[in-house]
């Protein structure tokens, strides 16, 4: 479903992605981890073309992301994305956040968009917050709304860019629970995260990145149970220490 072939990217002279190749199949849950600055957030932003890349090819549902002729807005509307800082639109209500793209991109009618939004808010346990503005919600609640907003587009896959990194510890689980449920429903997911507990529970593949390169790309069991490369070993020991 998602195919990366020899992707490289530079900011000026600085190379952020170095010859990255991997693939995500339908129904896969892939966790991308690695030290900060390793390029994992940049990599996931390349998948839906938010960040351009200079070399290589990315195909989503067999459509080339880097191709000039690709209708990027249309392709992006089929891939959900959740951001570290939630990025709900602060000037409109929670329910309008979930309706906006349904109305303007998918051209759904108001009633259908509203029903959809309420059904999804119910699913993430926030139906009673529909008319509030994002700033009135806690971080964990905002992130659950952001997930609902992405799901409202009926995406074929979901991208998560450090979805719990900006949250207070007590709010991390409410977001992870929603993600675990999504995975159980068979959603194809690519998740940049340091939550190794989440990776152990639901991932079937783990990618470890360092200095712009994909250093490990293997099944969850292989990643956690067998000898890893030195950098991955050090990284794991650092974040699993506590």
């Amino acid at each position, binding site marked *: 479903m998602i195919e990366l072939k020899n992707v490289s990217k530079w900011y000026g002279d600085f190379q952020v992605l170095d010859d990255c190749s991997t693939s995500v199949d339908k129904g896969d849950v892939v966790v991308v981890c690695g030290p900060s600055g390793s390029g994992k957030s940049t990599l996931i932003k390349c998948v*839906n073309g*938010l960040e351009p890349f200079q070399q290589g090819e990315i195909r989503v549902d067999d459509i080339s992301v880097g191709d000039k002729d690709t209708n990027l807005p249309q392709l992006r509307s*089929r891939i959900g994305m959740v951001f570290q800082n939630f*990025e*709900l639109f*602060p*000037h409109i209500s929670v329910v309008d956040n979930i309706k906006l793209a349904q109305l303007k*991109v998918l051209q759904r009618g108001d009633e259908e968009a509203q029903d959809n939004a309420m059904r999804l808010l119910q699913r993430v346990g926030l139906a009673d917050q529909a008319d509030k503005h994002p700033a009135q919600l806690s971080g964990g609640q905002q992130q659950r709304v952001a997930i609902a907003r*992405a799901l409202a587009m009926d995406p074929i896959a979901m991208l998560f860019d450090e979805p719990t990194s900006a949250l207070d510890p007590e709010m991390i689980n409410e977001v992870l629970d929603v993600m675990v449920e999504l995975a159980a429903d068979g959603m194809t997911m690519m998740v940049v995260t340091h939550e190794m507990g989440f990776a152990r529970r639901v991932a079937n593949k783990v990618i470890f990145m360092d200095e712009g390169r994909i250093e490990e790309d293997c099944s969850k069991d292989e990643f956690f149970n067998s000898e890893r490369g030195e950098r991955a070993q050090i990284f794991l020991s650092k974040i699993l220490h506590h």
Partner: protein
Amino acid sequence: MFGDFDTGVIFQNWHFLLEGMQTTLLLTVIAIVGGLVLGTLLALARLAPFKPLSFVAGSYVNFFRSMPLILVIFWFYFLVPLVVGRPVGGFYSVLIAFVLFEAAYYCEIMRAGIQSVRQGQIYAGQALGLTYAQNMRYVVLPQAFRNMIPILLTQAIILFQDTSLVYVVGIKDFLVSADLVANRENRILEMFTTVALVYFVICLSGSLLIRRLQRKYAQ
């Protein structure tokens, strides 16, 4: 000198003065609305990825910001009838001058406003499949306007004061009306004190409103 300060002259002529104030306010409101619309379009052009468009908008802004307003007013007074091919009257030429002049300032305010919206918000709109235009219309501009309300109002107050410059082409705004009364009735002190007081009250109210808005949005 203050012994024969005659407030009666103000009340006897209040209707005439009110007409002048209407002209001043009409000019201010139309210049704000027109300047804001044109200025926002200019700001979008200035930020457009298409370089020639951004260059043209940038040149426009730099040109008008380098001209004294009074010169622009004069200039359009003579230029507009030439372009249109018939006399249009002082009011319309002044209106066009103000809209075009203010647009340059509003452009820079809106540009700062658009750039104040976080990149993450733009990503979020894009990720949902919004086109560039939709993202601007539904995500970026509403936030830019909200962030910019205090500065937009400050510019409006400056504009309100600047409309008094239309006396150079003989438009009867509030100040000119008061001046006419002052000379006719030989009540210069009364009339200009009144004018000063009115401008002061209106501008001060505006400033206080801005301060309240700033405090509200700072929260």
